[in-house]
């Protein structure tokens, strides 16, 4: 009986170790460190690193701030709270690729209604031609989808804060702003940090669908984030070694991020 149960996880683990083994095999056995050297020396790759950094930071900030604001507001509301919560939850279920399509439609230079409204206001946007504008569009689409996730976690965090603390501060004469910044916000810090890591990981990986749908990394690699480059170089460009080397670098980044996250979780468990 024990053997049967042992067999499952062992088999699963074996399967996965093969998969990982291959990634390292491709990168190390055939070419040594050459792939890494050529990848890291490639100006296009470095540009992609920069784009990814801007992209994921912007997405994290734009998804976290509204999420927090809405959660604080939803925490105050009594009537209709369930309704707000349900609707704000919906984008979580939307595929990143579909979110990309929705925003693409709003900003499309020929048919998009937001693009038309902006043009009337004298702002002519064209994400097909202008790199920074394209980046802005994918950031908006990516952040839009992630707001509900952050909202949910912030709301749970807020509701876990004992009301007595806030009331004690109110009795001591602290105004609403002071109460928020001195008591509520510091208590939310752990969850904010957790969400920051989650959002960055999201921006790194799950946004592939948005990029592929909306801009295909263009114009002129302005929105080519690292995951997209791994896919493009490997599948379209057929540079398997380079692509695998990029995979390994990405893997190192994820492991670093996850390690930071677990460190922090441990610490939090420790302090109760």
């Amino acid at each position, binding site marked *: 009986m*024990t053997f049967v*149960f*042992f067999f*499952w*996880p*062992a088999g*699963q683990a074996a*399967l*996965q*170790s*093969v*998969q*990982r083994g291959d*990634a390292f095999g*491709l990168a190390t056995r055939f070419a040594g460190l050459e792939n890494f050297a050529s990848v890291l020396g490639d100006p296009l790759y470095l540009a992609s690193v920069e784009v990814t950094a801007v992209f994921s930071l912007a997405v994290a900030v734009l998804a976290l701030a509204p999420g927090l*604001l*809405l959660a604080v*507001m*939803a925490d*105050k509301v009594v009537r209709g709270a369930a309704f707000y919560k*349900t*609707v*704000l*939850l*919906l984008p*979580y*279920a*939307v595929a*990143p*690729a579909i979110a990309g399509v*929705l925003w*693409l*439609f709003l900003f499309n230079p*020929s*048919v998009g*209604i937001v693009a*038309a409204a902006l043009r009337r206001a004298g702002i002519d946007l064209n994400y097909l031609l202008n790199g920074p504008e394209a980046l802005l569009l994918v950031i908006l689409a990516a952040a*839009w989808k992630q*707001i*509900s996730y952050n909202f*949910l976690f912030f709301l*749970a965090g807020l509701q876990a804060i004992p*009301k007595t603390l*806030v*009331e004690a501060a109110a*009795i001591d004469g602290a105004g609403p702003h002071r109460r928020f910044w001195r008591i509520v916000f510091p208590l939310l810090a752990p969850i904010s940090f957790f969400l920051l890591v989650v959002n960055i990981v999201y921006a790194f*990986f799950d946004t*592939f*669908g948005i990029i592929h*749908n909306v801009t295909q990394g263009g114009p002129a690699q302005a929105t080519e984030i690292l*995951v997209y480059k*791994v*896919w493009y170089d490997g*599948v379209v460009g057929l540079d*398997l070694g380079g692509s*695998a080397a990029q*995979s390994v670098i*990405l*893997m190192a980044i*994820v492991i670093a991020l996850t390690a930071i996250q677990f460190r922090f979780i441990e610490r939090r468990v420790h302090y109760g």
Partner: protein
Amino acid sequence: MVNVTRNAWIPHAVLLLGLALVLFPVYVAFVASTLTLRDILDAPMTLVPGPNLLANYREALALGTAGTNGQPVGAMMLNSLVMALAIAIGKIAISLPSAYAVTFFRFPLRRVCFWAIFVTLMLPVEVRIIPTYKIAADLGLIDTYPGLALPLIASATATLLFRQFFLTIPDELVEAAKLDGAGPWRFLIHMVIPLSRTNIAALFVILFIYGWNQYLWPLLVTNTPAMTTIVVGIRQMIGNGDAQTAWHLVMATALLALLPPIAVVGLMQRWFVKGLIEPEK
């Protein structure tokens, strides 16, 4: 004590603004899916729904567009559904017993197994696409349902979540079952599975959405239009300048792609929220 009555309208106003921001893109897509292509191209389009709702959806579901080689959206939805269900059910079916084994049994290499499972958590599919693709190709899984689902089943998130839940089952319960003469199978079926029913439901929702929304892997592993999932297929409908994009059908498809995961979340919201937040806290 904390004054809530004064300025009570502010939270509502902010929340309504948030709702508008969340719903606006979806609403525009909905309106577009009820218009004719001519109405949409006559920019800026109206924000009042038109009369072509049923006609557009029927056309998209049954006929598809030129960009998808006439592959109807209905068939893509079926592919998505099969893939999402296979991933959700498969993952639960594998991770439940393996979490059970890691938690309740002592066998040699138990820690090694646990860590082997744990490490895979850190590596999303996107990172190991190329090697995984090679394996799938070697096994002849390209353009098949198993090819779509299997590589996504093989990851450990669910195992870890189940383990965390199993750890909360008190030892007394295990011992009581043992005293009553229940073997490991009986304990699993009569105690552990009923106890974890909510967790299974929550996990099902999360995994269903995860499976339905997969993009990169289906894009790689399917080559024939007949196997495309809806989330991937919509890309091919948006023209790249050579052909006029059938926006009304694209938007109808986008809404069709939104609907199943939203329905699942809406119907199972209670368990889903619990399942999403609790394991990560």
